[in-house]
């Protein structure tokens, strides 16, 4: 027969064991992340030079930078956001507004499927349509594939957050004689805006590192591009090609580019957290 003290001791032991196990799980989960970040940081810093951001790729003599690729990544992500965010937000509002209609269910299902599709497939489809159609690689084609990858994320985030807006606010707006589209834009979107902004930034951060779909859409370019209708260099694709290169200086530059890319993604995540903080609740 167990006494009260016995049970107390067992309970204390199982508590200790559970704490140790969960602490170990945290370490196991964090270890790869810390290892990856520190490895990228160490290797990247060694090759990080001002020239990296100011000079074009140099020919076989070595040196030079990837200034055009840094600009290219930013340009492509900006273009993709311009296309993906408005469409995604409006689609998400539609889903939330007509949540149980057949069309909304179908669109929601498609968005979920699209979110799970390997990004290289999106690249192939854009290659077959835009690139083949224009008969050339282009920054625009790259941006289109990134926008397609952003779309389901933005749509579903908006959908989920718009549905958290209290029904009482919708009723208030309906009772004020507001038409449905104005309720969606001026009440629902506005109320859910902080969360949606954060979710949108996460979607932007997510496509920042996409490489596969750019390989056969934006491709690469050793020179400055003046138009999104030309092949455009990006850091991601540079990393890919430089890693394959036999030259040591290019390997270094690939590490440096990786560091810049990781920094960009981390900044976007930080911005996302800031944006999703509700200005009304932080006083």
């Amino acid at each position, binding site marked *: 027969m167990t006494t009260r003290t016995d049970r107390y001791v067992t309970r204390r032991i199982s508590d200790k064991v559970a704490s140790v196990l969960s602490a170990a799980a945290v370490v196991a989960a964090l270890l790869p992340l810390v290892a990856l970040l520190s490895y990228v940081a160490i290797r990247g810093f060694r090759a990080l030079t001002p020239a990296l951001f100011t000079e074009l790729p140099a020919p076989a003599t070595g040196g030079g930078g990837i200034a055009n690729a840094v600009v290219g990544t930013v340009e492509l992500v900006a273009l993709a956001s311009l296309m993906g965010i408005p469409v995604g937000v409006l689609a998400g509002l539609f889903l939330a507004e007509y949540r149980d209609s057949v069309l909304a269910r179908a669109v929601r299902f498609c968005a979920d499927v699209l979110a799970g599709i390997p990004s290289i497939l999106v690249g192939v489809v854009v290659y077959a349509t835009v690139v083949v159609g224009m008969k050339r690689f282009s920054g625009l084609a790259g941006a289109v594939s990134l926008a397609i990858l952003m779309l389901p994320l933005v749509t579903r985030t908006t959908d989920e957050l718009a549905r958290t807006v209290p029904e009482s606010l919708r009723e208030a707006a309906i009772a004020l004689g507001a038409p449905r589209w104005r309720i969606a834009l001026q009440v629902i979107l506005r*109320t859910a805006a902080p969360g949606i902004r954060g979710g949108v930034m996460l979607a932007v951060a997510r496509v920042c590192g996409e490489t596969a779909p750019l390989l056969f859409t934006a491709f690469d370019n050793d020179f400055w591009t003046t138009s999104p209708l030309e092949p455009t260099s990006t850091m991601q694709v540079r990393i890919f090609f430089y890693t394959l290169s036999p030259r040591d200086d290019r390997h270094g530059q690939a590490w440096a580019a990786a560091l810049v890319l990781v920094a960009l993604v981390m900044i976007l995540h930080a911005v996302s957290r800031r944006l999703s903080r509700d200005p009304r609740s932080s006083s």
Partner: protein
Amino acid sequence: MNTTRSTPPPPPAPEATTKMRAEGLTAWFGEKRALKDITLPLVEHRVTAVIGPSGCGKSTFVRCLNRMHEVVPGARTKGDVLLDGRSIYARDVDPVRIRRRVGMVFQRPNPFPTMSIRDNVLAGLRLSGMEPDEPAVVVEETLRQAALWDEVKDALDRPGGALSGGQQQRLCIARCLALEPEVLLMDEPCSSLDPIATAKIEELIHELRDRYTIVIVTHSMQQAARVSDFTAFFYLGELVEYDHADVLFTKPSDPRTEDYITGRFG
């Protein structure tokens, strides 16, 4: 003994005009019938109180008066509601226009949390695509009408949600009044407020009755007796009795009304 179905009451005040009138109004939520064959006049520039125990259909009734009932999925109505003698359920009537003429204040204050006090007052106009020429004038006049101006005139940029419950409810009333409705529906406007805030809303109702036709749903018989000119007693989705408030509360003709107002049930 008593009548088996609610009988259309005689017009209680022949000299007064009827602003709205429900005629044989029946309402359902899916298969569940919430209202049964209601015929009831709403006299212009008078306060009509709707009382009855929980679930008697009083909220459903007022929500049929501005076509808010049909917003709930599966909800439908039969019968008709007349506004100035014209059906609001006719096929060519846009419910959006009806809702601008028949304003509504809800049980829980629901100002728009992302908008300032000023923007809340103007929200109804802006949501209808109307930008007032002189917004400052509209805001002041409307807040004065809602007896809120003196309390918030120095804080118009503060969020509407930062006000107290009673102030929020008066802000919601102001938001309605800014649209210059003809009828004001109030669905238990004081049920989440303390007695002082409640007294202020009741005072406000007294002031507003000259300009609006008011319908107030209330749980409190004392409140109905204090604010209303006419009172309707609903029970199990039926209109049991409708009369001048003083008559209904002192000499009810239906035993069920008497049981309710004497506190025997509900």
